């Protein structure tokens, strides 16, 4: 089954694009199957995205080959003479899809009153496109009953396109007026993301404000994070016992922000290790993480005034494979019995295997991850756990620099706004449900949409 649609007139084949999201295909097939159960005949699916009034978005593929009366008629209507007695959509509009990369035109129409949805007299709509208002028009897609929109993603930028929508009933058709001209063009600003922009701007603003505030002498209150307070104790214990310290930076690469956060903590731990003249071992599952960790630890030893103690071979690569890596690290733990184990970064199923092995050898363990599913395992098996945001705050917390502490306060304000939104949303919606006052429902809905990706 091909997902590539035929190119429009005046546009070469190589410019055709597959539908936006291939994952929608199974959904379309399921919905198609359901539709077959409801309709008396069968439907020929055509390409395009269809949005119903109920808000459902269905993407079907060319050659879906699920046939109904409406579908057959949609395909063959150009040649067959069908009575034009069905009610046409009274209004049609074609316009360039806003906030996109171009090559996309949105056709919207008002359904006739006879369209009562699936099972009603209207079987669906056939969408046709032409390069002039006089035609000729070609069939480009089909929409379900109740649909009001069709996204034509198979157009070239800069060309004027005209559209018409044809209502399909059991025995007749009704052709709408001409919508257009619509000219597709890419936009410079994605206005669908304005909520993300506002949140980002606020967070950036708060971060910068608090950084300046603390630099100017402001004294922020930062609560104690037990896991980070324990680092000195953990390194000291290893030094006293004469055993190494193990640092595991997770199993993701340097493009994961958790790995970056882990490496920043490694920097502080390495400096402490250098000061205590202890031994640090960092096995990695990614070669790039190994390179970065080596550089970080080397600089930390240099900053601590002990460059001669830096041992490059103690930071090494094992394998990219998840369980191969676990086997390597576990083997090291069982053989060398490190006194302290740090797990900072992104972890998956290996989290508990590592932490339980560390527990079995009696190591003091500090873990930190932003993988919610792994947090319970670390909490159960480790002495201290940095939960989610604490991992990201660790670098600032450990450095104690005003610039960095300001970012923690900025983060806190963001959290406060989030909490306030949740509280206000719950309160407003509860009152709206009790009183039935519609404006309050709209306010609650607006708050929900603001914090969702629904706009996009």
């Amino acid at each position: 089954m091909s997902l590539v649609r035929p190119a429009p007139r005046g546009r070469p084949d190589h410019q055709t694009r597959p539908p936006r999201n291939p994952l929608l295909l199974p959904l379309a097939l399921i919905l198609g199957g359901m539709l077959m159960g409801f309709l008396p005949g069968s439907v020929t699916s055509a390409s395009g995205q269809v949005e119903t009034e109920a808000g459902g978005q269905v993407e079907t593929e060319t050659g879906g080959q699920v046939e109904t009366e409406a579908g057959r008629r949609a395909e063959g209507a150009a040649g067959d003479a069908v009575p034009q007695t069905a009610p046409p959509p009274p209004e049609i509009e074609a316009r360039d899809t806003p906030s996109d990369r171009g090559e996309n035109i949105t056709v919207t129409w008002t359904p006739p009153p006879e369209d009562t949805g699936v099972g009603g007299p209207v079987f669906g709509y056939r969408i046709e496109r032409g390069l002039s208002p006089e035609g000729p028009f070609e069939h480009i897609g089909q929409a379900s009953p109740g649909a009001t929109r069709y996204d034509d993603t198979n157009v070239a930028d800069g060309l004027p396109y005209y559209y018409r929508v044809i209502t399909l009933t059991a025995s007749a058709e009704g052709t709408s007026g001409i919508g257009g001209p619509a000219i597709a063009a890419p936009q410079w600003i994605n206005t669908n993301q304005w909520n993300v922009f506002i949140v980002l701007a606020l967070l950036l603003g708060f971060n910068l404000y608090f950084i300046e505030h603390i630099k100017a002498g402001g004294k922020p209150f930062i609560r104690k994070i037990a896991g980070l307070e324990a680092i000195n104790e953990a390194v000291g214990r290893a030094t006293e016992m004469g055993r190494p310290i193990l640092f595991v930076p997770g199993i993701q690469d340097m493009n994961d922000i958790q790995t970056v956060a882990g490496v920043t903590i490694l920097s502080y731990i390495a400096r402490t290790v250098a000061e205590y003249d202890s031994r640090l071992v960092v096995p990695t599952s990614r070669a790039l993480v190994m390179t970065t960790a080596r550089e970080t630890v080397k600089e930390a030893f240099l900053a601590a005034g002990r460059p001669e103690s830096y041992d490059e071979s103690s930071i090494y690569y094992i394998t990219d494979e998840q369980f191969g890596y676990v086997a390597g690290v576990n083997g090291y733990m069982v053989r060398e019995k490190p006194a302290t184990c740090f797990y900072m970064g992104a972890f998956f199923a290996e989290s508990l295997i590592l932490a339980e092995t560390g527990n079995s050898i009696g190591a003091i363990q500090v873990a930190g991850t932003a993988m919610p599913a792994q947090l319970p395992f670390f909490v159960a098996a480790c002495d201290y756990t940095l939960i989610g945001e604490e991992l990201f705050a660790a670098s600032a917390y450990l450095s104690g620099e005003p610039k960095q502490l300001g970012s923690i306060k900025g983060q806190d304000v963001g959290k406060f706004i989030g909490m306030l939104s949740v509280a206000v949303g719950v309160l407003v919606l509860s009152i709206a449900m009790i009183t039935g006052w519609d404006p309050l429902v709209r306010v609650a809905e607006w708050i929900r949409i603001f914090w969702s990706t629904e706009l996009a």
Partner: protein
Amino acid sequence: MKRTIPLLITGVVGTVLVVAYFIPHPPFDSLREDFSIFFDIIASVAFILGGGNLIRMHGSRISRKESNWPYSVVTVLGFLLTLFVGLTKLGNPNGFLGSSVTTSGSYFYAAYEYIFRPAAATMFALLAFYVASASFRAFRAKNAEATILLLVAFIVLIGRTFVGELLTSWLPDSLHFLTIPYLVEKIMVVLNFAGNRAIMIGIALGIVSTSLKVIIGIDRSYLGSG
């Protein structure tokens, strides 16, 4: 200079990618994908770095006859053999150019399917035992909070089995809210989900804040400097 250039690259690339998120117009629309490909290229080169490090480290252990050096022999042999059968496509039913290295029947496929996969599955299987031992420690009723945790965990564990359904199936409809499946659903969907979301919000804000610190250049600890 050693720090300035990386900081500059991080700042410029980070800012451009953040801005590109709000610009659908070419060439900004494909920047994220492009940079992702750049990273993949760098990461694939890093495989050579990783492989080289592996050989050097274990070679050194073998030559110095360090403790546990026979393990290093197994590692190096395993690495070289896999590399050899992969590069030469040994045993590939369609010849060297006929098909992919992972084609069924090739030696590389056999090594993966009959050696690596069972070994990985064995490691994964350990998880079952570790879950039991960790749960045993975590669910000790040492104080009020731990007792609540134990109780909730017990309900959820029981509720996930057929026993949970059976134990309270005799309750009348008016007491449906006391059935174990109902309690499990409420614990997971309401309590657990709410707590999970709170953690997720914190993580999202933490990611934004850390990214901003790295892009602005406030946090330089990944470069080894405070």
